[in-house]
């Protein structure tokens, strides 16, 4: 079985070394005169050309009701569906028989930000957020407890584009 080697003949007439060089130099010089496209990030977080998408799935938020309590009814669907197993939920029940989360923790390091928790939540309580500045000084600060999840204020993800829900 012979290996087929295609021998290319070198181009003769259409070869251009110097003209191509000069053309390239003209091009690079043209780029000097053009405005730069860099976004000055810490000062400037979005431009007309670029904003964080509303479908961005970042660190979570727990929405609250009018009394400031978490909307969560501790149904257990989100820890059930979570593929990364990063949600810890211990349900509790008050005197009227309303379930609420005793412990609700999300380990943001384990989270894969799939957004299933938001999709599955019947009370629209847990949401993934449009947020990306998550730096902390220690690893254990990345386990978000209920208080932290409810107190965060960033926008929540729409998960899909409302104008184009089927992604067409």
């Amino acid at each position, binding site marked *: *079985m*012979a*290996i087929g*080697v295609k*021998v290319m003949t*070198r181009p*003769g*007439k259409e*070869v*251009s*070394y*110097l*003209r191509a*060089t000069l053309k*390239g*130099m003209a*091009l*690079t*010089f043209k*780029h*000097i005169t*053009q*405005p*730069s*496209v*860099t976004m*000055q990030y810490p000062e400037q977080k979005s431009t007309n050309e670029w904003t964080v998408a509303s479908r961005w799935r970042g660190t979570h938020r727990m929405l609250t009701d009018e009394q400031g309590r978490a909307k969560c009814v501790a149904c257990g669907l989100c820890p059930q569906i979570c593929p990364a197993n990063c949600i810890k939920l211990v349900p509790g029940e008050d005197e009227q028989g309303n379930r609420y989360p005793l412990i609700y923790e999300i380990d943001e390091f384990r989270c894969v930000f799939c957004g299933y928790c938001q999709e599955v939540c019947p009370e629209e309580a847990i949401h993934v957020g449009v947020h990306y500045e998550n730096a902390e000084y220690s690893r254990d600060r990345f386990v978000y407890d209920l208080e932290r999840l409810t107190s965060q204020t960033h926008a929540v993800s729409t998960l899909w584009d409302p104008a184009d829900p089927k992604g067409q």
Partner: protein
Amino acid sequence: MTPEQKGFLLLSVVKMLVVFTALMVVVALLTLAERKVSAWMQNRIGPNRTGPGGLLQPAADGLKNFLKEETTPALATTPIFLLAPALAFIPALMLSCVIPFAAPLPVDFDVTWPLLGQIAYHGALPMAVTDLPIGFLFVLAISSMGVYGIALAGWSSNSKYALLGGLRASAQMISYEVAMGLSLIPVLLMTGNVRFSEIVRTQQDGLPLVLPLFLSFFVYLISGFAETSRLPFDMPEAESELVAGYHAEYSSMKFSMFFIAEYANVTTICMMVATLFFGGWDIPFTSWDEQGGVLQTLATFLVFVLKTGFWVFFVMWIRWTLPRFRYDQLMALGWKFLMPLALAYIVVIAVTLWGLDTALPDGSPVLKSSVLALLNVVLGAVVFFGLDRGTLLGRPSGPGRPTSRPATVRS
């Protein structure tokens, strides 16, 4: 020691300090300029966080390099490994001391200082550390020394990448030194001197040598790129092939010294181009700058900086425009194109100069230069056409063009 000798000594030391400091600052700024120019060419901004407009970035980089850990490979040849950065660094800095960077400054003083006694200096002070009679021969000689540092760095690192980088560097520099040296012989033919001040004076009387000796300039510029191993000739440190080439094993200040050496070499090549082919510190189309005076010295210094600055920008411009050569193409360009071209050009220029001297024994330098410039237009067009079509480069060697069908391989 006479007061005049003391004055000469004192002024020389001052000039050395000034030139050394200025060169180091320029090198530092060049690292910033390189990043800025590359950023602009890619529609970016470049470093702008440290200091106003990023001006303190070189200082931050330098500080970082001082604080980084120095590593020596376990199997490296330690003495040579330690010596190599210095061997690259020192020649690079020595080069700049012969190039005149301004019109001679008229100095006239006669003072008596404690400890030093009477110090005097009368007359024009050449604005170069030393106006050596051997001029650009010194530059050629010392710049060849730089390859020792690179080759030894590659060898002593005991690393395959570094070794290949050093090997490539030595082969490349030796090849292009030939073309570089030959390309400067027409300059010698025109000016009759290798001393920089005389070369500048010739260009003041006639035209800048780039016009009568355009092809020399062309060859010198390309060889200069190769000598400083800048893109498109940066085979010794080809990142995509050799990690970092000869300085792959170096860290901290030792790496920095190679870096400084590279930029100092770039500066020197650009100063050489400006001096040899563009009239040096001479302000074109005026003779005001030749009268001598403090103002003239300052103005000519500024002009020299502008000329050098343009060529430094040009070097960066090329770097961010062209991709790297293939190694055999690099060698082919050096040996099969630039060297024969430089040799042929010497013959042409020598014959033409002899013809001009015979035909017009008392023609003005401007006239002779103009005739040569016309000749260069014709020659340049021919060479450029041939080079552009690739006909002057000859057939590519190597595996690109097998002469017969490749042997069949059984699997």
